[in-house]
């Protein structure tokens, strides 16, 4: 069986930053990702990031991945990369079993940073399984990674940041967005995103939902309807839009299977996207040596995922005895950055969610 000091599961923004910071303290790291490239969702993000310089504000997600990869290269001797490698289970004896290129491999790490991210939530309405009804992440992969248009016309469900950004990205790829709808009475995403879409003439219909999807072999038309302030359908408010793609972006749930398998204490916190692990300030879960970072710990923006990754990497390395003279300084810097990113009105939800699971 292979061994390592810190196994990091997931090479997205959180996992990448965790690997870099743990290796910078001298720890031996194995970074595992199921794709053949690192960066996770960053590689689909063609828009410029918010935040401040420390979180690469104003740089496009696709390019941040490249910057992080360069940082990673500095620690080649410390970091073992396992790409195309999917963890299939974490067993009670701490053994991680994974599949890499049709090969079955086991690793026994001293500690683990779970940075598996999140998966998309789905919606219920008649014929919701028709081809042409996709998750926003799948559409982003198809369009931004593989350069294939999901269809000609798109109705986007969800006016959160992902729904708004993906709509914008699809427009950039020459695909027509017929409307963005959201059941909530308010736009959930940053309003600058909403405004830039509105000025392209795309309607954003708040207090609207999908009532029915139509089509024989694939989506042809959707029936939408209006909702009142109690989220009930307004009578006779249905109308149809012809479209071949309905893109669903109604939020993410943390991908926590591995944490459950390990017996980590979990709590349902809707503000963070669903069941999330209880953790301390160092991002260590109730199971000693199992750390979390990024969306798996609570769905947030990539900028905070990167800082969380850095923090978890530092703390996991420190727990194994790796010492840096400026450890406290680095840790406090991470905590300050996280506080700053989560401050203000839009961070309110995250703050109240985290208050329920941070011990």
């Amino acid at each position: 069986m292979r061994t390592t000091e810190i196994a990091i599961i997931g090479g997205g923004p959180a996992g990448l930053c965790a690997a870099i910071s743990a290796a910078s303290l001298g720890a031996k790291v194995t970074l595992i990702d199921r794709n053949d490239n690192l960066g996770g969702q960053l590689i689909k993000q063609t828009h410029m990031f918010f935040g401040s310089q420390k979180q690469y504000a104003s740089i496009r997600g696709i390019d941040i991945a490249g910057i992080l990869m360069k940082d990673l290269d500095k620690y080649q001797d410390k970091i073992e990369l396992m790409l195309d490698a999917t963890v299939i289970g974490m067993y009670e004896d701490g053994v991680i079993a994974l599949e890499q290129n049709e090969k079955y491999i086991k690793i026994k790490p001293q500690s683990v940073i779970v940075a598996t991210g999140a998966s998309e939530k789905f919606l219920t309405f008649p014929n919701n399984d028709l081809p042409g009804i996709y998750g926003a992440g799948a559409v982003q992969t198809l369009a931004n990674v593989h350069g294939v248009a999901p269809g000609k016309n798109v109705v986007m469900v969800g006016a959160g940041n992902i729904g708004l950004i993906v709509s914008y990205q699809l427009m950039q790829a020459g695909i027509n967005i017929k409307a963005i709808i959201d059941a909530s009475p308010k736009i959930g995403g940053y309003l600058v995103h909403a405004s830039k879409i509105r000025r392209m003439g795309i309607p954003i219909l708040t207090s609207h939902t999908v009532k029915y999807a139509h089509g024989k072999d694939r989506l042809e038309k959707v029936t939408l309807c209006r909702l009142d302030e109690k989220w009930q359908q307004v009578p006779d408010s249905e109308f149809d839009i012809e479209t071949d793609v309905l893109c669903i972006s109604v939020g993410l749930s943390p991908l926590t299977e591995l944490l459950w398998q390990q017996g980590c204490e979990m709590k349902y916190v809707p503000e963070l996207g669903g069941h999330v692990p209880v953790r301390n300030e160092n991002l260590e879960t109730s199971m000693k040596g199992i750390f979390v970072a990024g969306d798996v710990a609570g769905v947030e923006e990539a900028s905070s995922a990167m800082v969380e990754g850095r923090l978890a990497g530092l703390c996991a390395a420190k727990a194994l005895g790796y010492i840096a003279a400026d450890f406290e300084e680095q840790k406090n810097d991470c905590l300050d950055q996280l506080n700053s990113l989560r401050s203000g009105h839009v961070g309110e939800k995250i703050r109240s969610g985290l208050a329920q699971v941070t011990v």
Partner: protein
Amino acid sequence: MNNTASVVIIGGGISGCSIAYNLALKGVKDVIVIEKEYLTSGSTGRCGAGVRMQWGTELNCRLAKYSIEFYEKANEVLQYDGDIEFKQGGYLIVASTEKEDTQFKKNIALQNSLGIPSVYLSPKEAKEIIPHMDETKIISATFCPKDGHLNPFLATQAYADAAVRLGVKFMKYTTVTGIKVENGKVTGVQTNKGFISTPVVVNAAGGQSKLIGGMVDVDIPVYAERHQILVTEPVNPIQNPMFMSFSLNIYCQQTPHGSFIMGRGDANEPRDLRVTSSWHFLEEMAQSCCELLPLLKDLRVVRQWAGLYCMSPDRQPIYGKADQVEGFYMATGYSGHGFMFGPVTGVVMAETILGEKPSLPIDKLGLDRFEKDELLFEPSVV
């Protein structure tokens, strides 16, 4: 809640539900089944769900034959509005050692004498039944076309639905915390939802039955042993019978749904109440499956899980009453075969509780056999 009952059954698996149904069928009123979680949440819902008549002791053969003959007509008898998905594809049990081959010849003679239509096969004949097996690994096989597989959730539900129609009450998500005994007699059951007075308690708690016995100071010589199973993604039907080997330690069957279910025993498994999964099982199971049924190497595993065998010293059930405590009955110690014995368990336990002569001679399966050292070893178990 009801605070009195004529019989309280602890355990909502196939045994508890079958006992409840049979008692109610015989006219017993006020039967209550207490289940810690939901029906089938214990060993029933975790088992491989194969049923076979091919056993090595006369009693096991008769218990199994009785049960399978019931399952054949269970949808109608229990008036189930669904289908218990009973498929009789047979069991092909292969021998890989001389000793096993000798035992199989004896087993066939015994089984045939009891009316069980099993046959002895050469490796070549065995391969005609499961063409994708590696017949070079075996020296003989036995096959009984009446053996098969059914859906444990639906079968248990069929019993429970029928029992409810006959007036049985089920208390789900209820935990038994104690059993009250006065003057050597059971007088009631304490639960987390209140006390139920009753003169009769039936311990059908599977992996937890030793714990329940302890509540009345009856030492049941069983232990819980973890057994693991894996299931694959479904494919179109290619394997009709169960494939099984005692010496090579495997059972593997394709369900009507198309997925393959397979398991094996392991002497190193923990003997406690853990039902976690291990990578050891995954690897060893994959290895023996690919060796014996090489075609299955391209099948993908979608899930592995674990359940508890309630192991008795001679690998046979423990049926009957406890002599020390009047009104305390047990149906346990199946050693991995409680699901397939479910129908007969209900019948003989109901008869025993009502003081009738059991339809099958289960007197040899009482708790007292361990004190008397009259064990009945079953040679044919995985």
